[in-house]
């Protein structure tokens, strides 16, 4: 690490933390990491801690760093608490809950100097692993649970709840909040509820009796989360599809996108089931106003979406990088035949299988130009689950307005982690923008319908739907076609259509979400980012400002780029582009499509697969400024 960067980051962290200091302790400003073995039920305990902090009104984030495996491999969960709302991943852990013997050495090494480590001292810890600058808190979790629970399954599961109890005591988690959460989760299952309550108490009491609780860093009730909800991006995406009126979905299971469709399915079962009082005896008394096809592969998944879009339904698919690779040919088909389609890409680390449970933003260039031939697509980049909801609705409107595929580029961090975001809102006056679709009345009034003729000011031509009127019949084809929809190999007729497609793409720029721009007086540089990088980048900008480097901020939310994107870059001699990939894909896209002079843009690239921290961003910017 660069010396300047390290020192500066440390100082600024102290500055930021100072605001939360009460007496000798630090209130509502710390980070903990929990090291577990996957498949042992630890996720429930970890979410319990995170959710309890949220319920206490304290800004909190939780990041699940999990393996691509079902059982037995190391998994970590990180919780960051920050009164000011800086919730990017912190890599300075005040408390480590070390529950995985396989990773003891690495976990112990990661604790901040002066920090604490909680471990299961049912078995002795190798003295060689001890650190003088870390306080070791041994809790005999296995022994406590073995004494009180009989089944081995219960002993494993309840050990997690027991450490949650100990953590609660150490951090001053409100016991009433915890009790309330357990009641909500297990209320109807008395035996399970009692087991959880007991385990929680075992850990809590042991910590209270044996350690000085709470630790110097701990929680105090606040009201900072009163208007927030805790939601993961994949749930919010599914909600968006539900609210936008999607009726058909095609998909193939893939990490980290699977929970988009799992959630959509659950939501539909809850909100899209219509009672049918006239059902004959023996027939189901309801009908499902949706159809989800779990396809045989991603080719089929997108094929289903395109077919449904052609026939007039709002349809979508959700996938991740490998699936998007397979969908390329069909994306070209939808682009060229001008059929609306919505594709959610919850990005993970590539290339190839890559790291399925790690995050990257490395599908940007593929998505922008997916398929062979000249193609350009509409992309939306949500920055958090709230925008996943909002952009899904926008995606369907854009897809139908512009008769083209729209890709929503979320990522694993947004999609699978719970984020504290403002409550989602819905305008009941909303009506879907179905774009230019002609019905029998309009067709009757025109001499002759041609699918790709009569463009509007956006370059969009009217379409018709199968099953409505013979006068609107046309032949959709992925082969070369002319303005009238006929097959062509004529250079002029071919170019006329593909040129209009380009003009349509350009026109869409004004309809994409504007970038988020935050300016500061006396800023000397710009920092541009996208998606889930926002928390780390905004915190980094604050740290840099405290050091005298003032920067303006821009988060890009759509492609083609809105006008403001180019003007932001024109207004800064130097911009850093922060993104989660090796090759600077967003930076390249800005150079190609927003005509940004290459010398004005520098990359900050974090691509190891974990969510970025502010320190990583500060370090890379500081290094380059110093150079």
């Amino acid at each position: 690490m660069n010396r300047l960067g390290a020192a500066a980051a440390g100082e600024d962290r102290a500055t930021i933390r100072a605001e939360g200091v009460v007496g000798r302790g630090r209130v509502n400003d710390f980070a903990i990491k929990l090291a577990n073995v996957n498949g042992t039920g630890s996720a429930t305990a970890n979410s319990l801690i995170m959710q309890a902090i949220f319920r206490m009104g304290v800004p909190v984030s939780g990041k699940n760093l999990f393996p691509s495996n079902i059982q037995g491999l190391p998994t970590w969960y990180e919780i960051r608490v920050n009164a000011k709302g800086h919730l990017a991943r912190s890599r300075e852990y005040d408390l480590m809950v070390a529950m995985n013997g396989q990773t003891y050495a690495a976990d112990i090494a990661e604790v901040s100097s002066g920090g604490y480590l909680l471990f299961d001292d049912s078995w002795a810890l190798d003295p060689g692993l001890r650190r003088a600058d870390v306080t070791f808190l041994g809790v005999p979790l296995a022994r406590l649970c073995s004494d009180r629970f009989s089944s081995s399954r219960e002993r494993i599961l309840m050990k997690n709840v027991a450490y949650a109890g100990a953590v609660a005591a150490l951090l001053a988690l409100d016991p009433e909040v915890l009790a309330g959460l357990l009641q909500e989760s297990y209320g109807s299952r008395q035996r399970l509820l009692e087991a959880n309550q007991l385990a929680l108490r075992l850990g809590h009491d042991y910590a209270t009796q044996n350690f000085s609780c709470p630790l110097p860093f701990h929680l105090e009730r606040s009201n900072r989360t009163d208007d927030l909800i805790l939601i993961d991006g994949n749930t919010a995406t599914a909600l968006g599809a539900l609210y936008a009126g999607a009726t058909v979905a095609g998909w193939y299971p893939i990490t980290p996108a699977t929970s988009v469709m799992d959630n959509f399915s659950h939501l539909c079962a809850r909100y899209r089931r219509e009672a049918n009082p006239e059902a004959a005896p023996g027939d189901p008394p309801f009908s499902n106003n949706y159809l989800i096809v779990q396809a045989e592969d991603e080719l089929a998944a997108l094929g289903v979406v395109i077919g449904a879009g052609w026939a007039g339904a709002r349809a979508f698919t959700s996938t991740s990088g490998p699936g998007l690779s397979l969908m390329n040919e069909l994306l070209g088909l939808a682009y060229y035949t001008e059929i609306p389609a919505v594709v959610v890409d919850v990005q993970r680390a590539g290339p190839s299988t890559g790291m399925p449970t790690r995050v990257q933003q490395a599908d940007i260039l593929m998505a922008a130009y997916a398929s062979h031939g000249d193609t350009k697509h509409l992309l939306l980049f949500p920055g958090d689950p709230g925008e996943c909801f909002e952009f899904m609705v926008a995606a369907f409107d854009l897809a139908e307005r512009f008769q083209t595929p729209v890709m929503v580029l979320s990522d694993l961090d947004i999609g699978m982690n719970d984020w504290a975001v403002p409550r989602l809102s819905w305008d009941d006056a909303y009506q879907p923008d179905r774009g230019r679709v002609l019905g029998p009345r309009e067709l009757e009034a025109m001499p002759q319908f041609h699918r790709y003729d009569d463009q509007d000011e956006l370059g969009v031509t009217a379409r018709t739907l199968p099953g409505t009127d013979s006068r609107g019949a046309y032949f959709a084809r992925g082969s070369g076609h002319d303005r009238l929809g006929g097959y062509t190999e004529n250079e002029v007729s071919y170019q006329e259509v593909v040129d209009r497609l380009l003009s349509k793409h350009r026109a869409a720029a004004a309809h994409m979400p504007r970038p988020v721009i935050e300016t500061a007086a006396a800023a000397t540089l710009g920092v541009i980012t996208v998606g889930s990088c926002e928390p780390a980048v905004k915190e980094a900008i604050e740290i840099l400002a405290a050091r005298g480097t003032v920067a303006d901020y821009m988060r890009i939310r759509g492609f083609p780029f809105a006008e403001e994107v180019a003007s932001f870059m024109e207004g800064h001699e130097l911009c850093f582009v922060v993104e989660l990939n090796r090759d600077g894909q967003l930076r390249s896209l800005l150079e190609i499509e927003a005509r940004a002079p290459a010398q004005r843009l520098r990359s900050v690239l974090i691509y190891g697969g974990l969510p970025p921290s502010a320190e990583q961003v500060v370090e890379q910017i500081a290094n380059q400024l110093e150079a």
Partner: protein
Amino acid sequence: MPSITKPLIPLLPLARNELGLTMQDYQGGMSTLCAGCGHDSITAALIQAFFELSLPPHMIAKLSGIGCSSKTPAYFASRAHGFNSVHGRMATIATGAGAANRELTLVGVSGDGDSLSIGLGNLAHAIRRNVNMAYLIENNGVYGLTKGQFSASADVGSRSRRGDSNLLQPVDPIMLGLSLGATFLARGFSGDKAQLVPILKAAVAHRGFALVDIISPCVQFNDHEGSTKSYRYMRDHELREIETDFIGQHEEIVGSLARDRATAVTMHDGARVQFRTVPEGYDPKDRGQVEAYLRERTGRGEIVTGLLFLDESQQDMHETALTPPNGLAQLPFSKLCPGSAELESFQDGLR
């Protein structure tokens, strides 16, 4: 694919169907396939089947993939919406179109390359889903547009025009369909329109996935001595043991059937399919028996044509999904969006 507008030659008086439409109302553009191509005969049979079924042209959705066969939707039903998609993916596009609007009459036209090589997986799963559509494979054992490579349906020992022998086992779509739980399996020959038209009518009327494998010789690349998909070979080896009559809902039974040997199956809409001159003991609803019969005949080098298997009892994709009787695409938005109050209460659970 190129097509030329057909000149309208009035041939009065033209017969009219129940909708008052003539055969011309189901025609398409002029074919640009080779003279004598089996595919054109299938197109003609389809036009006749649509006409006889009195299908409203605007309710037909015709789909295809890529290849010679996939060009043909341009040559029939120009008053219907058509979709010439990408190689191998027609089944998926049709699945989506059917999912969006179950009232459409979906007719997919594909070939042996499109369905049995690049699109085999998608075909298999459309069969499993029992998507309500007629799926035609215009099977000639050869890649025509790329000039004569063997396809996955080429028989072992079958020779190419250049003289190479195919050494790989063929994919037989009927056997495939039997193993996948297909609900309608038929084989026809493009040179036998009289047999093909009732099969196509039954395929369209079938509720579920109707797979029709039609041997359709390629006059350019696979109609020579040594080919097993040539006109000559088919004339010598076709076994028309299973004759099929399709009797629409309102049609009278006509013709003289060998009633003592006929088997009848009633379709979901009340139409009937009559199997006649059926080999003794042949039960078109018995998957195992049909498979054994076909294996035995294939072993003798015979190609059995006719409606070979039919199961009207299975649910189609929409019935399995419990969707409403009309198209999902036709649902009003008010039935789809839960509204702001529901969103509020949903979020109360996210605290």
